[in-house]
């Protein structure tokens, strides 16, 4: 029994799954389970891969952002993928890996990419034929790189034809590889993220400073990152790290080096900050839409140094900046619009022996590996926080509240009501 995983970064679900010309996708959709993935938090390609490979969410892995606080310090090192629990679990250790060639995205050489797909098709077909491994894994960052370098292609401008050709080539490759699988095999196509425009950054530490939660002994001379600030730990109640999400840490006694906030006060302080974040406005007085997530709601497990609050600003269109600027106290910084990794991951799971079919709502990235194991008839390790999508399938059905809301919305404005 073989499992083939095609992991394509930055796949735009409507373009690929909705593409009229994509015959192979079209054919597979009718015989597969598929859907959009729930938001992957934190929004980070490498951590997403850890989540996928470990079948566990980021909280269970203790990975709350690109920069690691496991030493409880503020001088932050980037974590090392190889030392992470996902690798230790080793479910996918017996695998044969393939990768698309690295391309110069700015100068897209379409014939080279198509030839690369051709090469991969041949190599993977041969590997599947040989059948020496259980898992076969193809990872691609080519498509994402091209799309990020050519945002105008989405508007039908320069690069549009190449973009369409790239997607079409993926459709062909998918069809070719699906045909190479036997009836008992599984095919999973997964994209942990799609792309999204990012237009600004919210200065979270600047805000904590303005509210008095963060106190400095002396102001920096110039723009400074959080670990470069001269923080007055005797008076600071909270500080933050940036990224695509914001992470607020209370200066908690017993956890932080110079903790100030007693454990008994933490819950109230956290609620207070969360409430205040709902009323943040920009310089003109317009509200800044901030979604505050409680880590205990966002994650199944809570390992390591857990942030006390997570922030998503304007549905990820605005990033969170942790720096403080002594000359500019504005909270919202406009950035040049840029296409970056966004939420909106998607998947397609094809397995002849699966009863799972059609659109699967609310699938999470960490559910995919347990689902594959389930389909392979293997035990799902207890360490995995994800759940097989086949669990409780008999009970499944459409979510009534969703239909209800849709019906209510459609009827809105019928004067008779």
């Amino acid at each position, binding site marked *: 029994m073989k499992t083939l995983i095609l992991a394509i970064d930055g796949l735009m*679900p*409507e373009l690929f799954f909705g593409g009229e010309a994509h015959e192979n996708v079209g054919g597979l959709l009718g015989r597969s389970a598929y859907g959009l993935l729930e938001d992957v938090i934190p929004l980070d390609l490498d951590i997403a891969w850890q989540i996928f490979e470990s079948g566990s969410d980021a909280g269970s892995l203790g990975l709350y952002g690109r920069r690691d606080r496991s030493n409880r310090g503020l001088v932050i090192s980037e974590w090392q993928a190889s030392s992470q629990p996902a690798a230790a679990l080793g479910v996918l250790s017996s695998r044969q890996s393939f990768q698309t060639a690295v391309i110069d995205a700015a100068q897209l050489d379409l014939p080279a990419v198509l030839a690369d797909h051709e090469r991969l098709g041949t190599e993977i077909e041969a590997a599947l034929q040989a059948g020496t491994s259980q898992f076969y894994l193809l990872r691609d960052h080519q498509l994402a790189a091209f799309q990020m370098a050519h945002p105008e292609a989405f508007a039908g401008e320069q690069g549009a034809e190449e973009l369409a050709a790239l997607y079409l080539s993926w459709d062909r490759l998918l069809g070719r590889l699906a045909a190479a699988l036997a009836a008992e095999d599984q095919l999973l196509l997964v994209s942990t993220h799609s792309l999204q425009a990012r237009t600004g950054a919210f200065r979270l530490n600047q805000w904590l400073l303005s509210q008095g939660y963060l106190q400095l002994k002396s102001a920096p001379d110039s723009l400074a990152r959080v670990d470069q600030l001269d923080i007055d730990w005797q008076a600071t109640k909270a500080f933050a790290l940036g990224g695509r999400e914001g992470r607020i840490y209370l200066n908690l006694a017993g956890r932080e080096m110079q903790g100030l906030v007693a454990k008994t006060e933490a819950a109230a302080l956290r609620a207070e900050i969360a409430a205040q974040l709902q009323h943040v406005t920009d310089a003109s*007085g317009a509200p800044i839409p901030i979604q505050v997530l409680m880590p205990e709601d966002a994650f199944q497990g809570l390992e390591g140094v857990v942030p006390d609050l997570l922030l998503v600003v304007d*549905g990820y269109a605005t990033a969170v900046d942790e720096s403080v600027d002594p000359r500019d106290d504005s909270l919202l910084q406009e950035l040049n619009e840029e*296409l970056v990794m966004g939420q909106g991951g998607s998947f397609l799971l094809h397995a002849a022996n699966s009863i799972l079919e059609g659109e699967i709502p609310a699938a999470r990235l960490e559910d995919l590996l347990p689902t594959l194991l389930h389909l392979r008839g293997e035990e799902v390790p207890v360490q995995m926080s994800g759940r097989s999508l086949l669990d409780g399938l008999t009970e499944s059905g459409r979510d009534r509240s969703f239909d*209800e809301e849709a*019906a209510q*919305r459609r*009827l809105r*404005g019928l004067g008779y009501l």
Partner: protein
Amino acid sequence: MILGFDGLEPDIVARLMESGQLPHFEALKNRGGFAPVATTFPAQTPVAWSTFAIGTNPGGHGIFDFIARDAKTYLPDLSFTRYEQKNAFVPPKVVNRRQGRPFWEILSAHQIKSAILRCPCSYPSERIAGNLLYGMGVPDLRGSLGTATFYSSAEGLEAEESENLVPLVVGPDDVIRSHVVGPRNPKKNSDFRADFSLKLDRAQSQALLQSSGEPRELELKLGEWSDWLKLKFKLPMLQSVRGMVRFLLLKIDPVVELFASPVNFDPQAPVFPIGNPPEYPKELEAKIGSYYTTGMVEENDGLNHGRIDEAEFLAQCELVWTEREQMLQHELDQLKEGLVYCLFDTSDRVQHMFWRFNETDHPANLKHGDGDAWPEVMDDVYRRCDQILGRVMVQHPDDDTLIIVLSDHGFTTFRRAFNLNSWLRDAGYLVYKTETESNGADFFANVDWTKSRAYAVGFGAIYLNRLGREGKGIVRDDEAAALMAEIEAGLAALKDPQTEKAALRRVVRAEDIYSGACLADAPDLLVCCEDGYRVSARTALGGAPALIFEDNVEKWSGDHIVDPELVPGVLLMNQKFKAEGARLLDLAPTILEAFGLQPTKAMEGRSLWP
């Protein structure tokens, strides 16, 4: 030439003709005739105009009410359209639920051109020779029939039903930053927005609205409806949708209040086609300027909730009358031979909202205390219709052009709301799981379908909880007749405790009034109210409040969903016709024959030509 005026009441037409206030109606009557025209079971706009278009009873075209239900889930939903989606990644396709062939498709098959402007339930339609502009059924950008937005700098406000509420914060220099509420983002449970800023000029009672839309700068004058603002809403994945909106600056000092119409599809780039050929709405815009594209245009919800007042509502209605006339004129100018149909639905909406002003003791007047404020508006509606007819007659003085004036139903008062589901509950047909506070909430919350035998959805329809048809059906086919007889007997004995008189005129069975391919979708029973009663909004949505009857104190004070016999529509033609017993059903065969064509087999009516 068919002029549709929604909801004209024959008694009012007759009275105003007698006193010489409808000279053109009178002239038409004298040339051809005037008759009440039997409407459909039930007397509702989408049902009636569908019968007009298709020439069958609702059993043939499948539109039985504004609201239908999903038999599997019992959920009420809009009856006109449904969305079909191949999979989660492709955009949904809108499908018209009306079945059958409208008579203009038959004309088209004979190379006769038509211009069909705003016929209900035509969204979407097949291509015909000529032009279609869709009407009732076309949603706004939020997928609703119309969700307006109320902006206010006052504190402590709550959103009313069917509106968005946006608080305003006045910034330095009297500048306000806000946004137009765009489509829903179901994934994020939030809304897409288009930002604007508003610079107040309190001294001049005006404001300047700046946005990235078209025009960049839009002047808002206190108490005046603005021109259209065309906007782009950015969606994720680099897509955008276009919409347009009108504003009304309601207050400026000290409190700032602003009203925005629902975001209409932009005829240049609608989310779904709003006409056929798809370019037609664009061409029309080039000729007459931007126009409302949603299916239900008038801001009656804003008036009903007190966000706008009667004068502001009427001012908006005037915009609608005018643009509809311009559409009609455009087609009259370019179509030399063929069929023109244009529906004016403002007549219906104004009567709904102003009926009470001609009825001193209407319950709504007791609440609002202004019952004598607008005595002429109802009659003005009819005079406005007469004016429109006059302009058409002047251009077509000869008898070569057949002119038909038609309303789909009449009108009457709406004083008491009847909670049909509450009656079904009290009588033991609708059973709740446990005694909890949420019992009786809309969408049949907490109903025990394993014990319920009947339920009501829409404005008079009762469905039995039938085994094999409903999701959790329990009533066997051989039990149905007895159960229906029992419900009929119960309802026949029902009296309004306030008057000690019957509130219902009769209850009819589907098998006695409906036939055709869609019969399986029909309700089992239809409740026909007495004059002054209407099945309540709560019942329509599957709710069951505590009381069976309640006073209607809403500004929405007139209605027509009573026994259809009480509210026939109006038919006038400039050629002699058999007026006796004329029905909406008869119009399709009559019009086909006027073009020298035979009615199709599916059509149930008879030609009205002598």
